[in-house]
């Protein structure tokens, strides 16, 4: 595992690069990076639930959709400033996720997968049904927010920075949550919920809360996407969105924080390259990656990097025999 100092350096370097990007890339590329950050937030939410807490969700696209529509409806119907819609979407998704998590407590493993999968299938229909609010299958057209205080940024650059800021705050909060006492309880429930309960962890409460927080992250991502794309429509929140998020989560590394970012890059850029082959190719490639990763890299990209890092450390330590005692011997479960 990287030491605290190394990790801080890596994070700061990445942030510096991220802040420089808007001034070097075209607006279209920049929009793609904004989308990467949005996916990363949603995937982190999914990682908390599926990776850390061991509850399946094949329907996280539903919370993404709820977040996006809450934001869009507030902007469209009540002219609320987009900045306010994001926390509201987060809080409402927290409540919805918590409520969905309550019955989910009774569903283990496969049954939860079934229930969430059906939820993902049902979402576009439900959205179309409440036409009065959601604009039906036409969707809602929004306007892109522009930079305040006369900052010399175009709307794409401004949105990029807003998304980046939300990402940094949410990842910082998430990391603190998952690496602390609550995070240990969440992981303990996944590994052995009976033992966790015996140690005094309130399994029911933690599981529903994890569901809520996970939904809130994904909802915030959805709300950001409504502003970034400036358009919401039911059919963009179909079951394949949920599968996309799961793919990002698996490829990046299920139980890891940095994995969410790798996964987001994967689901944003790989289809772009694959599109050149055929319209259907991105999904075929996604599917193959999904299966191959399960065989050879079940801990995803983040897991592979961690493994390489440990190997590199070990070989370095092996050259200096006196420090062998301090060599890390086993793979940690979180990055």
């Amino acid at each position: 595992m990287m030491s605290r100092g190394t990790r801080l350096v890596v994070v700061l370097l990445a942030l510096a690069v991220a802040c420089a990007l808007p001034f070097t890339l075209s607006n279209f590329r920049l929009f793609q990076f904004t989308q990467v950050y949005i996916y990363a937030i949603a995937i982190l939410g999914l990682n908390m639930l599926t990776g850390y807490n061991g509850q399946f969700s094949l329907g996280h696209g539903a919370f993404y959709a709820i977040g996006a529509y809450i934001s869009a409806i507030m902007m469209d119907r009540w002219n609320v400033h987009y900045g306010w819609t994001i926390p509201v979407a987060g809080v409402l998704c927290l409540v919805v996720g918590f409520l969905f998590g309550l019955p989910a407590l009774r569903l283990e493993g496969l049954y939860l997968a079934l229930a969430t999968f059906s939820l993902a299938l049902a979402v576009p229909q439900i959205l179309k049904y409440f036409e009065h609010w959601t604009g039906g299958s036409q969707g809602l057209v929004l306007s892109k927010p522009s930079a305040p205080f006369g900052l010399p940024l175009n709307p794409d650059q401004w949105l990029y920075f807003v998304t980046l800021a939300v990402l940094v705050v949410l990842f910082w909060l998430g990391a603190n949550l998952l690496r602390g006492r609550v995070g240990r309880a969440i992981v303990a429930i996944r590994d052995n919920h009976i033992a966790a309960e015996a140690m005094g962890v309130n399994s029911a409460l933690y599981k529903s809360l994890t569901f809520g927080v996970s939904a809130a992250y994904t909802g915030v991502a959805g709300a950001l996407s409504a502003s970034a794309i400036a358009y919401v429509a039911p059919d963009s929140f179909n079951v394949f969105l949920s599968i996309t998020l799961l793919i990002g989560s698996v490829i990046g590394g299920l139980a890891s924080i940095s994995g969410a970012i790798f996964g987001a890059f994967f689901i944003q850029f790989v289809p772009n390259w694959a599109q050149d082959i055929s319209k259907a190719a991105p999904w075929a490639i996604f599917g193959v990656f999904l299966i191959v990763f399960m065989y050879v890299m079940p801990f995803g990209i983040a897991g592979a990097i961690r493994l390489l890092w440990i190997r590199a450390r070990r070989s370095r330590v092996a050259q200096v025999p006196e420090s062998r005692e301090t060599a890390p011997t086993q793979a940690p479960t979180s990055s």
Partner: protein
Amino acid sequence: MEVFIQQVVSGLATGGIYAALALALVMIYQATDVVNFAQGEMAMFATYICWSMLNAGVPYWGAFLGTLVLAFLGGIVVERVVIRPVENAPILSIVIVTLGLLVIFNSVAGWIWTYVQKPFPSPFPSKPLKAGNVFFSAHDIGEIVVTLLVLLCIWLFFKFTPLGLAMRAAAHNPVSSRLVGIRVGWMLALGWGLAAVFGAVAGMMIAPVLTLEPNLMGGVQIYAFAGATLGGFTSPGGAVLGGFIVGVVENLVGTYVSFIGTELKFTVALAMIIVVLLVKPTGLFGISVVKRV
């Protein structure tokens, strides 16, 4: 009253499709504790193969049987090649692998046959049947007959043949089966093959109604899930009955509850799944499995 009877019969017809797919899901679940999320897409793929054969001039029932054979072989290959390496992996890994299969089948079908909807022929006459003053579509009746025939065959196979017995034994108690010389791995593969056959029957029977396209089975699969959940994932007979019940309920609700209509069909299925799981998670005929921890 006539409308009611008509709706019940056409509900039974679609229910038969759900029953066949639900049975496929339950067979695989019983043998390997996995829900195959790609079951519907495999069925859709088989239906496209049938369509290609028909297009090449093969007569309907020849193409039908040919598709069943190919589906059987395809199911075995999928189990041997894709599922076997993760057999002992955590459930999440297996679910993810079947989801991978789902998107692969879906996109490859789109790749080969494009996303344009294709009409699919029905082997039954288009003239409606008349009983008293109620009309039934011949395709609905044919669908019910075909489904029942397939179910009868599979029941006879499992009940009265040594291979069927061996397959049941392998699913019920793999360790002891292995000790008496049953090749458990191959029995599981055969189970996948048979499941693929049921799926193919379901696909070819529903395609004339829905028209063929790569997303043909998405809706059917969610209803098959609902049927299997209602009947119980541990009870093949229950799943079949569940499939029929779900088909009838779907049709009646669509006809008589005006605010639902056809627009909220998936939501009805979702509600059914969640209610069953909350009230009686084992389903109507399932048995609860007690695990030692």
